[in-house]
């Protein structure tokens, strides 16, 4: 019996394979995205494991001064070094001072990390004899390769305050000598004598420890150390290995791909439905011939499994290509994805067997569950019921739907009494229930309008995450109700018109309206993907605009910041010089007030600074009064009338003083890019505190490099704000564009669904097509009806997606603005239009080609058996 079942299943599969090839493309998407995402994780994990050996060597843990802050890195006490050396579980220790330097060789320049070390410490740490002579450096292999540097070459190193020529005495081949930073974020490291590295505040600013623990034990060990010794120790190997950021791209693929996977599963449902409908007669015949229902079920499962397996294998292969493609994109993208992540240029695609298996299984499980459920339902009844399977265009709501609807209404009303905060969700639930009881287009339109009015009119002043979710669901479902309800009047409108084109549209709309299930399935695929695609277009568009506005403002209207090297403060009280190329500047002196940064600003600042959140200019005068202060807040926080507290220097040296300030106003912290909690004028500055001088400046883009060099050569730390922000922005841009690519796979599923439905309709309705031609409809009109029908199905979804996302995107942006600062919402109409036009062109051309190329002779079509 099994052989017969297998033979029928296999022949069915081969005979109908061509017609479902298009489905295989759509159904392979879950496996493709899963294998793609997991392969990316494999790749990064494999690369990190390799990197731990090639770039870290014995460096397991780093130790820093816990009082470090964004302005200064402080030296560690010798006592801490001695205490750590005494520990038996610390096998080796390397004290270093670190600073960012710029290496120039052969006309090329790279910013990298420089480590000032003592040769004997380095030798002990890496376990081999190393001698760094005066004016000599060891350059890590990756950095040497990047600049094509060889041993004995002379390289120019521009440190903070000093530029000099150094001889490369050794290339650090692997292990710690090829270190690239805790997160592999640097192109490489230069090792030099500690006394020749300028720019660091004392020695050592950092310790690297090799410990007698496994990587899994490092985190616990570090926690104990931090508690015992009040240091800031980090388990660098364990952190890199376990950091979720390293899996970000893989998970991003799966997360964004999730919507596409969902769309693909909807396609699977469409396929399963059609598959079972088409086999009804055959299955009934087999049952009549004596096949048990279990045999028929086995036959269905065998054939269905064959389709899903082929889709899974196809998807897994495509998934590997997808991973390769995304990896290339990532590598082509600038060296840093986002702050603190990876240097990825040497990433090579790694795909594990388990990922392929997981991807195929993941892509198979849900389709098989759907398939099994439907197949069981079909075969469980008597044979004659199979023959009465619902024909196309005859789907209707069951009686039980009304009772379920009624129950839903009652449930919604009851829940409203207990959870009034979920009113939107419950109104939505009740509306769906009402529509289930009375599925009329008038009621649908009424309910949809009611929901829109309620949600738009009663908008809470501050949206919580729950509010946003509820409102999103409301916009989405109400759009569904509205557009599906509009079908009836639209169809009526065309039924009254008497041109040939309108007859086609009328027939097409009739099919859409009566084929509720298929119309809903196809529209759902498109609505989900279009909804997410548009949100994905809206958010970065507004964030980008917001950041660009921020860039114009910069830090209080300045685009350049120079932090004075705190070392200088010990020896000199001189202020930062003003470099040529600076258009306007202000001097700011930074310290801590109650552990938050406080900036004392000069008159230039009070005159020129831009503070968007304060409309009136009065503060510029009032802040000049001694003892006054402005407080930075996040949003609508209230501020006290006065602030009492202790002012301390940022880096611990120097005295402290208790002061009281009168609060004269507040500014929005989210709009100033640098976390300065308090701003006061220099007239309020206490005398005995060592402040870190900071210069805020406006520098023309053309002069940025010269001005940067000017301050680097003087030991100070120049920061070009635009450059830093652009780096972050390009990271966001990269993520969004990658996300969009993954969402387009969902559109592929949608398109696959439409194509499948078109092909199926053309074949199933051969006879009706012939009848339409017999009664006088031209080929063109009949074809047009098919095109209009399928485009309408997709368009319903697209309209729902667009309408809901347009309404919802403002909520999402408001939520984002509440985190990053107040901005103005704008809808990216041109981006969305371009996307829509592209989508429609592809869809229309595909459907039209399918319809008009599949011309059948009406006489032959009329002979087709029902």
């Amino acid at each position, binding site marked *: 019996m099994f052989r017969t079942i297998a033979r029928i299943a296999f022949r069915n599969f081969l005979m109908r394979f061509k017609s479902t090839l298009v489905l295989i493309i759509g159904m392979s998407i879950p496996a493709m995205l899963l294998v793609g995402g997991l392969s990316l994780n494999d790749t990064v994990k494999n690369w990190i494991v390799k990197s731990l050996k090639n770039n870290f060597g014995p460096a397991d843990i780093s130790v820093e001064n816990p009082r470090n802050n964004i302005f200064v890195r402080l030296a560690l006490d010798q006592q801490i070094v001695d205490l750590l050396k005494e520990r038996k579980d610390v096998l080796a220790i390397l004290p270093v001072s670190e600073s960012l330097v710029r290496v120039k060789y052969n006309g090329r320049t790279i910013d990298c990390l420089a480590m000032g070390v003592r040769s004997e410490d380095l030798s002990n740490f890496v376990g081999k004899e190393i001698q760094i002579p005066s004016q000599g450096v060891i350059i890590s292999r990756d950095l040497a390769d990047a600049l094509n540097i060889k041993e004995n070459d002379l390289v120019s190193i521009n440190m903070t305050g000093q530029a000099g020529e150094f001889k490369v005495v050794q290339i650090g081949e692997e292990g710690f000598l090829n270190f690239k930073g805790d997160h592999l974020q640097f192109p490489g490291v230069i090792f030099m004598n500690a006394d020749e590295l300028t720019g660091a505040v004392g020695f050592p600013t950092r310790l690297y420890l090799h410990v007698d623990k496994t990587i899994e034990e490092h985190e616990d060990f570090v926690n104990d150390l931090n508690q015992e010794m009040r240091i800031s120790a980090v388990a660098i190997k364990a952190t890199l290995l376990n950091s979720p950021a390293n899996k970000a791209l893989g998970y991003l693929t799966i997360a964004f791909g999730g919507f596409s996977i969902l769309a693909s599963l909807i396609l699977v449902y469409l396929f399963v439905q059609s598959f079972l409908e088409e086999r009804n007669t055959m299955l009934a015949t087999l049952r009549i011939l004596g096949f048990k229902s279990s045999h028929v079920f086995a036959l269905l499962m065998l054939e269905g499994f064959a389709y899903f397996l082929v889709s899974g294998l196809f998807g897994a292969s495509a998934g590997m290509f997808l991973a390769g493609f995304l990896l290339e994109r990532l590598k082509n993208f600038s060296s840093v994805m986002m702050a603190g992540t990876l240097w990825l240029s040497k990433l090579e695609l790694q795909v594990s067997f388990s990922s392929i298996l997981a991807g195929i299984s993941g892509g198979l499980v849900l389709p098989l569950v759907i398939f099994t459920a439907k197949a069981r339902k079909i075969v469980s009844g008597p044979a004659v019921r199979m023959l009465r399977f619902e024909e196309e265009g005859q789907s209707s709501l069951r009686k039980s739907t009304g009772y379920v609807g009624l129950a839903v209404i009652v449930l919604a009303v009851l829940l409203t009494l207990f959870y009034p905060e979920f009113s939107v969700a419950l109104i939505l639930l009740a509306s769906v229930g009402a529509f289930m009881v009375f599925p009329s287009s008038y009621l649908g339109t009424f309910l949809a309008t009611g929901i829109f009015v309620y949600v738009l009119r009663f908008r809470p002043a501050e949206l919580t995450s729950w509010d946003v979710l509820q409102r999103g669901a409301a916009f989405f479902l109400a759009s569904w109700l509205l557009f599906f309800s509009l079908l009836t009047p639209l169809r009526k409108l065309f039924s009254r018109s008497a041109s040939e084109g309108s*007859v086609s549209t009328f027939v097409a709309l009739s*099919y859409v309206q009566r084929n509720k299930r298929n119309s809903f399935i196809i529209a759902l695929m498109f609505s989900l993907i279009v909804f997410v695609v548009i949100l994905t277009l809206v958010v970065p568009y507004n964030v980008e605009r917001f950041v660009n506005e921020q860039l114009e403002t910069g830090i209080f209207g300045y685009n350049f910041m120079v932090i004075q090297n705190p070392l200088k403060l010990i020896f000199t009280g001189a202020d930062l010089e003003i470099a040529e190329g600076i258009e306007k500047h202000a001097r700011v002196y930074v310290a801590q007030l109650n552990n938050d940064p406080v900036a004392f600003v000069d008159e230039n600042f009070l005159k020129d600074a831009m503070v968007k959140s304060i409309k009136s200019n009065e503060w510029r005068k009032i802040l000049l009064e001694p003892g006054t202060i402005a407080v930075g807040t996040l949003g609508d926080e209230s501020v006290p009338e006065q602030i009492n507290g202790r002012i301390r220097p940022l880096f611990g040296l120097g005295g402290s003083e208790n002061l009281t300030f009168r609060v004269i106003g507040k500014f929005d912290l989210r709009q100033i890019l640098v976390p300065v909690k308090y701003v006061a004028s220099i007239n309020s500055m206490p005398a005995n505190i060592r402040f870190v001088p900071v210069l805020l400046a406006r520098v023309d883009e053309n002069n940025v490099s010269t001005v940067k060099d000017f301050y680097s050569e003087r030991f100070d730390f120049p920061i070009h704000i635009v450059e830093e922000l652009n780096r972050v922005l390009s990271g966001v841009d990269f993520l969004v564009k990658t996300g969009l690519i993954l969402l387009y796979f969902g559109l592929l599923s949608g398109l696959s669904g439409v194509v499948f439905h078109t092909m199926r309709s053309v074949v199933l309705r051969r006879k*009706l097509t012939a009848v339409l031609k*017999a009664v006088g*409809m031209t080929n063109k009109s009949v074809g047009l009806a098919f095109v209009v029908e399928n485009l309408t199905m997709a368009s319903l979804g697209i309209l729902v997606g667009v309408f809901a996302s347009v309404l919802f995107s403002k909520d999402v942006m408001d939520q984002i603005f509440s985190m990053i600062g107040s901005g103005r919402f704008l809808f990216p109409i041109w981006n969305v239009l371009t996307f829509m036009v592209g989508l429609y062109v592809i869809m229309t051309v595909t459907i039209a080609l399918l319809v008009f190329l599949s011309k059948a002779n009406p*006489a032959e079509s009329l002979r087709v058996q029902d």
Partner: protein
Amino acid sequence: MIVVKELWKIYGKGERKVQALKGISVTIKDGEFVAIFGPSGSGKTTLLNCLSGIDSPTSGEIYFDDLPFHTLSEEQKTQFRARNMGFVFQFFNLIPVLTALENVLLPLKILGINHGEAKQRAVAMLEKVGLRDKIERFPSQLSGGEQQRVAIARALVHNPKVVWADEPTGNLDSETGMNVIELLESMKKELGTTLVVVTHDERIAQRANRILFMRDGQIVDVREGQKLGSI
């Protein structure tokens, strides 16, 4: 009047060549009820399809009141059909997503008749076939006989000169089948339409003015139906 001269229909090529119609010549007068009678595979439906223009003959001539129908393009044939012909099929072939009324309205819409007039005519036609109270029902909500009556209404609503009916009772029980034929006959009489019915049911053929007996693609005999006893 429909004049057919030397009509040939050949399917396939070479060894697979099948001669479905072999030089058929016949004349059908206006208002006549003609039955095409014969066993399965004799070429009845092929002849009807060629005459109505939904299939093209391999050779031969067809004239509708001196109009050389065989020389018209597909587009012109379609337009001619829309104005002058009505069809009734064995499996009713109603559009399942349209109501009975909408199915009957369809030929009028194709002809561009305005909605008000079209609706009036369609309702009147449905009333004539006894379905006034079921005009808003979908085909799946009607019995087989009712569906065929809708199909007849659709075939006649635009006052065609000729109605082609291919086994119109083939999918109905005998009593309903006779009812349908009686309806077709009475409508033909009332509207003066030419009626050409393909059938292998003797009782139906006997009601025709003339019976064309077909075998192997040829008309082997022509008899007057109403004067016939047993075929």
